[in-house]
C-alpha cells in the first residue's frame, strides 16, 4: 500500500483511531446492550403482563401487578425484614469494622496475620458457610449453645424462633462481610498523614480529639463507600437466608424473608414471572434512590 498524502493522512489517522475503537468496543457493547440494558427494560415490560409458559396466553394487565403489590402482605413482610436487616447490619458492620481496624492500626506485630484471619470468611462461599452456621447454631446439638452453657446462659433457639432468626442471620452476614470493612478502613487509616497527628499532639490534643477531628472526618469517604456497598448487599440478601433454613426458606413464619428471596419464590416457585418482575422494579427503585443519595454524600469530599 502506498503511504497517503500528509494532508489526507491526518484525517485518516483520526478515522482509523475511531475505527479501531469501535472494533475494540463491538462485542462488549453488544453484550451490554443485549445482556444488561435490554433485559432491564424487558423486566419493566414483563411486569405489565401475566406470565404463562405458552407465549400466546400472556395477557396484558397494565399496572395491575403494581396494585397487587399494595395488597401483598408477604411483600410487606419482606420489605420490613429487608429494612430491618439493613438498619441492623450496616451500622453493626461499620462499627465493628472500624473498631477492629483501629485496633489493628495500633499494633505493629502480627498485623498482617490478624488482617488475613478477619478477611478469610469474605472469600468463602456464602452458601456453604450458611450450612456451617446452621449446624453450629442448632438449638439442641449446636456448639454455640454448648459454649453458652459454660457461662450459665440457657440454650437459645436462634434460627428456629421468629424473634431471634433475623438478628441471627444478620450476625452471620456481618461475620462474613466484616473483613472487607476492616481492610478498607485499615487502608483508609494508613492513608492519613502522620504529621496531622503529630501537629495536633503538639497543640495538646487528646486521643479522643485526634479521633474526632482528624481520623473521623478523613475516613468519611471510606465510610460512605463501605456503607453504600454494605447497604446494597443487605438489600439483595439472598444466599444466606436460603441456606440457613433450606426447608422453610425465609422462615420461621416468614421472619427472615427478604425482598430478593420473595422475588425468587414468586418467580420460580409460583411461576408468576410478571408479578415478580414488578417487584424487581421496586427493588431497582430502592437501590437507585440509595445510589443517588450516595453520589450526593460522596460529592462532599473532605480535602486532604
Amino acid at each position, binding site marked *: 500500500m502506498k503511504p497517503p498524502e500528509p494532508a489526507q493522512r491526518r484525517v485518516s489517522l483520526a478515522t482509523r483511531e475511531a475505527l479501531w475503537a469501535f472494533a475494540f468496543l463491538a462485542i462488549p457493547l453488544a453484550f451490554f446492550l443485549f445482556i444488561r440494558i435490554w433485559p432491564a427494560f424487558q423486566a419493566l415490560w414483563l411486569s405489565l403482563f401475566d406470565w404463562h409458559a405458552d407465549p400466546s396466553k400472556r395477557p396484558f394487565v397494565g399496572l395491575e401487578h403494581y396494585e397487587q403489590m399494595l395488597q401483598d402482605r408477604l411483600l410487606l413482610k419482606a420489605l420490613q425484614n429487608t429494612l430491618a436487616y439493613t438498619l441492623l447490619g450496616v451500622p453493626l458492620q461499620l462499627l465493628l469494622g472500624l473498631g477492629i481496624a483501629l485496633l489493628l492500626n495500633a499494633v505493629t506485630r502480627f498485623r498482617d496475620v490478624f488482617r488475613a484471619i478477619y478477611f478469610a470468611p469474605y472469600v468463602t462461599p456464602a452458601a456453604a458457610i450458611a450450612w456451617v452456621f446452621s449446624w453450629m447454631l442448632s438449638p439442641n446439638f449446636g456448639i454455640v449453645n454448648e459454649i453458652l452453657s459454660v457461662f450459665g446462659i440457657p440454650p437459645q433457639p436462634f434460627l428456629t424462633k421468629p424473634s431471634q432468626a433475623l438478628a441471627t442471620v444478620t450476625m452471620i452476614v456481618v461475620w462474613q462481610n466484616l473483613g*472487607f470493612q476492616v481492610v478498607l478502613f485499615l487502608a483508609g487509616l494508613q492513608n492519613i498523614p502522620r504529621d496531622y497527628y503529630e501537629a495536633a499532639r503538639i497543640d495538646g490534643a487528646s486521643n479522643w480529639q485526634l479521633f474526632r477531628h482528624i481520623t473521623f472526618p478523613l475516613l468519611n469517604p471510606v465510610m460512605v463507600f463501605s456503607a453504600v456497598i454494605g447497604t446494597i448487599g443487605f438489600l439483595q440478601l439472598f444466599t444466606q437466608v436460603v441456606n440457613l433454613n433450606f*426447608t422453610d426458606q425465609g422462615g420461621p413464619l416468614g421472619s427472615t424473608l427478604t425482598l430478593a428471596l420473595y422475588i425468587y419464590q414468586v418467580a420460580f416457585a409460583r411461576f408468576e414471572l410478571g408479578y415478580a418482575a414488578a417487584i424487581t422494579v421496586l427493588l431497582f427503585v430502592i437501590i437507585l434512590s440509595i445510589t443517588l443519595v450516595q453520589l450526593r454524600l460522596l460529592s462532599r469530599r473532605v480535602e486532604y
Partner: protein
Amino acid sequence: MKRLSTFLIYALLILGSLVMFFPFVWMFLTSLKPFAEIFELKVWPQAPTLDNYREVLFKTQFPRWFLNSLIVAGITTLSVLFFDSLVGYALAKLRFPGKGLIFVLILSTLMVPTEMLVIPWYVMSTEYGWSNTYWGLLFPGVISAFGVFLMRQFFETLPTDLLDAGRIDGLSEFGVFWRIAFPLVRPALAALGIFTFLGNWNAFLWPLIVVQTADMRTIPVGVALFSSEAGTAWNLIMAASSLAVLPVLLVFLFFQRQIIEGVVLTGVKG
C-alpha cells in the same frame, strides 16, 4: 499503662480472631467424625474418619460440580480480563465520537440489581435453549461494568508517549494494546481477575435458576442441594461444606497479600 493497653488490644484481636476462625475449625472437625459422634459435642473426633469425604466425593457428583465451577469461573475470568481491558483501553486512550455516552451507558448498568435481570435472562435462556448449559451459566458475567471502570482508571495513568512509541514502530492499535498497555496494568488485572473468579466461584442465585440437572450444578448449588437432602447427617454436610470452603481458603492463604491489596486497590481507588 502503655504496656497494659497494648496487651488489651492484642487480647481483643485474638478474641475476635477466634470468633472469625472457629466456624472453619468446627466445620472441619465435624467433617472428620462418624455420625454416632456428632451429637456428643466432644471437640476432637474420637475415631477420626475420612468416610464422610469418601461418601460426598464418590456418591454425589461433587467432582463434576468442582469441574463445572472451575470451567464457569475460569472462562468468565479470562473473558472479563480481556474484554474489560479492551474497553477500558479504548475509553482511556483512543479518541472517537460518542465516547462519553458509551462510558455512561456502561456505568449505568451498575445500578441495575441482578434480581431485576434474572427473570429476563431466564426467559431468554429457555427461548434460546441456553438453560442447563455452560453458556447459560456464564453468559451474564462474561464482561463486567465495574471492571471496565477499573481498567479505564488504570489505563489513564499510562503515559501516551509510550503507546506512541509503539505506533511509530509500526504496531497496529491492537498490537499497542496487547503488547504494551496490557502488560503494564498487571496489578489491576490481578485484582480484577481474583475478584471475578471468587465472585463466580461463590455465585448462587443465577446458577440455582439456570441449572436443572445434578450434573450441571456448580459447587455452591451442589452443596446446598446435597445438604438439604442429607437431613441430620451433619458430618456429611460439613464434609461437603469443607470441600467447598477449604480450596478457597487454601488459595486465599497463598495469595492473601495480593488479594487484600486488590481490595484496597479496587475499593479505595476504584
